[in-house]
């Protein structure tokens, strides 16, 4: 009798344990329904879910002061979700494919043109009356509107951002160590040959004066494996008269426009010249031996000079401003004015990227609840007070009594302990008549870009693919596989030529292979896009 009872109890316990064990496998399940039109938090106020792209140094979004003020202004609760930019690259496509985007997406998660493949975004153009600040922005800056307007139905599925007129130039520039030039009694190079001579002098004559031959005459970032990247060594193409545009598609694949005809400079003779230039530099030891493969962190360390003595080590490189060489060494460097590569070039040009407008500031999910609250939130973000805080970080902004703003200089102090950034990597819209004092970045950029103004002016309107030319959904898929086939081969071969030479022998074979891999079809598609979207717009 007793034994039977014991067995019965054991069975019950075993049964419960088994059910609990199985239930743990269901722990991963979950989800919420967005079936109703409103979503309320526990105290009855609307609850809005916002996802933002986070840089590694950002503080949590809810601690950025403007975010709490946003909640007050819209009388709601905001639930923040942040994704780091490194992991977003892999998550993005799967998030889109699962149709599971947040109510509002900020800071460059998605861009204009995404709606062609994934029609899950809300059309802002129908609701502009609910957002007067946004309406004013789009009216004042028609170029920004052009950038995001959908080419097929004229809707606006992603709001643009305006970083200010002083940003309307390429952030990719070339710099040279002026102190070294002065010390060796050399002039600024005005041709590729002269640049090679200057680099040779840097290598052999110890311009940083520390008795060691530790100078790196020219340093470049490693070649990416499937396209040309920002601050790439092929900015040199501009010296040959062909404008690059390494910022947005299809520039990284080498596409440019020559008076209305779309071409690709990876099969041009100018490309041959630039590759030969780098090969010569590599053979003579003017570039580091592992320049094409070294990690970006190694590159940054080389750029900062000798840690112990504080001497500079890099002579020429491609950066944003001279403060990228660290504040201590910045005074030694100056912008290198674009020169004509050789006698056959009439006018050098410069990279046609522009950092002024961005097309991915804000997107809204089509089926998000609490739409009225969402319009209020976005409108507040585009008001001037909030725009200044979003751009500079609430911590550093003080509003003066006359309506102007002052930025605290500690924001630009790179020697301070606190390396955090206090706002998202985005801006909204600051009207041109707003006075902002103390924007050190603006002064630095204006100073750095001065040398490139003349070259950029040499680029006529018909020589580059404008930023508003977008591929449609099906074109995107076809281009995707073509890009991989063509660019992987191009980058491999280019890397091999720079490291080991041999371009003259292998050039014809290379052009044939690139054409077989699909380059003519890429050019054909972009010519079609250019004809339909650019030629038809009146400037």
């Amino acid at each position, binding site marked *: 009798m007793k034994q039977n009872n014991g067995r019965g109890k054991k069975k019950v316990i*075993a*049964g419960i344990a*088994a059910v609990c*064990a*199985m239930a*743990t*496998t269901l722990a991963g399940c979950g989800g919420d329904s967005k079936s109703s039109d409103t979503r309320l938090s526990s105290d009855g106020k609307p609850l809005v879910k916002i996802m933002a792209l986070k840089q590694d140094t950002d503080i949590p979004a809810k601690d950025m002061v403007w975010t709490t003020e946003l909640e007050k202004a819209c009388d709601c609760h905001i639930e923040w979700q942040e994704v780091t930019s490194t992991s977003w*690259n*892999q998550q993005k*496509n*799967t998030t*889109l*494919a699962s*149709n599971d985007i947040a109510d509002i997406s900020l800071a460059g998660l998605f861009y204009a043109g995404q709606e062609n*493949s*994934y*029609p899950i975004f809300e059309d802002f153009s129908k609701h502009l009356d609910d957002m007067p600040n946004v309406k004013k922005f789009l009216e004042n800056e028609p170029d920004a509107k052009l950038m995001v307007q959908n080419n097929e139905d004229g809707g606006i599925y992603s709001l643009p951002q305006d970083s200010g007129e002083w940003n309307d130039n390429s952030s990719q520039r070339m710099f040279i160590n002026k102190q070294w030039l002065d010390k060796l009694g050399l002039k600024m190079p005005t041709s590729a040959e002269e640049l090679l001579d200057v680099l040779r002098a840097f290598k052999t004559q110890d311009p940083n004066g520390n008795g060691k031959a530790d100078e790196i005459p020219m340093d470049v970032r*490693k*070649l*990416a*494996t*499937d396209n040309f990247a920002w601050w790439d060594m092929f900015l040199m193409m501009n010296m040959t008269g062909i404008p690059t545009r390494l910022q947005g598609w299809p520039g990284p694949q080498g596409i440019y426009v020559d008076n209305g005809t779309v071409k690709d400079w990876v099969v041009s003779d100018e490309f041959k010249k630039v590759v030969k230039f780098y090969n010569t530099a590599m053979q003579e030891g003017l570039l580091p*031996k*592992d320049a*094409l*493969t*070294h*990690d970006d962190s*190694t590159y940054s360390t080389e750029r900062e000079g000798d840690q112990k003595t504080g001497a500079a080590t890099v002579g020429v490189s491609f950066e944003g401003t001279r403060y990228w060489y660290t504040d201590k060494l910045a005074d030694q460097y100056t912008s290198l004015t674009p020169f004509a590569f050789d006698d056959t070039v009439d006018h050098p040009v410069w990279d046609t990227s522009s950092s002024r407008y961005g097309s991915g500031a804000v997107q809204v999910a089509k089926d998000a609840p609490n739409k009225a609250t969402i319009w209020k939130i976005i409108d507040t973000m585009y008001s001037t007070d909030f725009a200044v805080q979003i751009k500079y970080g609430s911590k550093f902004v003080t509003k003066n009594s006359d309506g102007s703003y002052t930025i605290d200089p500690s924001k630009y102090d790179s020697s301070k302990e606190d390396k955090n950034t206090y706002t998202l990597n985005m801006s909204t819209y600051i009207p041109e008549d707003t006075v902002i004092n103390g924007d050190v970045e603006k002064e630095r950029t204006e100073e750095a870009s001065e040398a490139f103004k003349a070259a950029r002016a040499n680029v006529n309107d018909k020589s580059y693919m404008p930023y508003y030319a977008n591929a449609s959904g099906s074109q*995107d*898929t076809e281009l*995707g*596989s073509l*890009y*991989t*086939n063509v660019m*992987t*081969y191009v*980058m*491999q071969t*280019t*890397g*091999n030529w720079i*490291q080991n030479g041999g371009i003259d022998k292998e050039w014809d074979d290379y052009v044939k292979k690139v054409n*077989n*891999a699909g380059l003519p079809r890429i050019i054909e598609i972009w010519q079609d896009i250019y004809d339909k979207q650019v030629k038809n717009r009146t400037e």
Partner: protein
Amino acid sequence: MRATNRNANAAGTEAGTASALVPDNRTLLRQRPLPVRIADYCKRYWQLWLMALPGVCFVALFSYVPMYGIQLAFRQYDPTKGLTGGRWVGFMYFRQFFNAPQFSNLLINTFRISLWTLVMGFIFPIILALLINQIGSTRVKGFVQTITYMPHFISTVVIVTMINIFLSPDTGMVSKLFGNANLMGQPNAFTPIYWITEVWQHCGWNCIIYLAALSSVDTALYEAAKIDGAGRLQLIRYVDIPTILPTCGILLILNMGNVLNVGFEKIWLMQNTLNQPASEVISTFTYKIGIVGNQFSYSTAIGLFNTVINFVFLMIANQVARKASDTSIF
């Protein structure tokens, strides 16, 4: 058993009542109706089944149920229609893959890297196990074992960073032995660098199972062999190696199932523009096309191709092992 039963029954019918008093339990049990047999089975073994149930549910839910997604390889994925709503296109993506210009290069690279790693990663742990087994003192043996399996726990990212530092031209420890050349930038050097570092990292861990097998050798065999005049090497050859041969066989079959699965992370981290002709493998290609390039159907087709090849290899290896040495997994 059956033969004796038959004989017994025959004897029983012949002998008459004498054998009818001895019931044959086995046939009786087998002759009961099916529901009764099932009930009895459950009463006997329900604990074992309950123990296995969570695992079974887990594997069923997460490994078998998602298999319906394989149809993505045969459909043209349309984001608005979901996983199963795309148009049926049959083998189009497989044809696209076979006709892609990188196809032969991808396959050659994958096979070369994985076969080198497989063979070398198979031989060295055995040698290391045989060597460690020869160590007399248990303390020294334990110490050596711990030191050799420690690198197994270092993460791939750290290992590749170490490789980059050791091989960086002009400053790297190892590159000095090769005349300061940029080894990471040479396609020919990629496979050796890969398998040498693989073996170095995992040799100690993989030899643990062989050491376990070796510890089960009957010491009487050693003594018998020594009496017959065997030296150290002959002991290894005639006693140790036959002992671990079944273990070797099973591990080899298991690894053959991974032939085309060259690990993604390490290759991805070691890849750069210069060594790409030798370092682009199926897994990194699928990642670039599928996840970054947004072509889900195409990459599913490539992944399916990869898995089918692995499966065929596993089957072949299993058959060969069964014929050759009677050890096999199934």
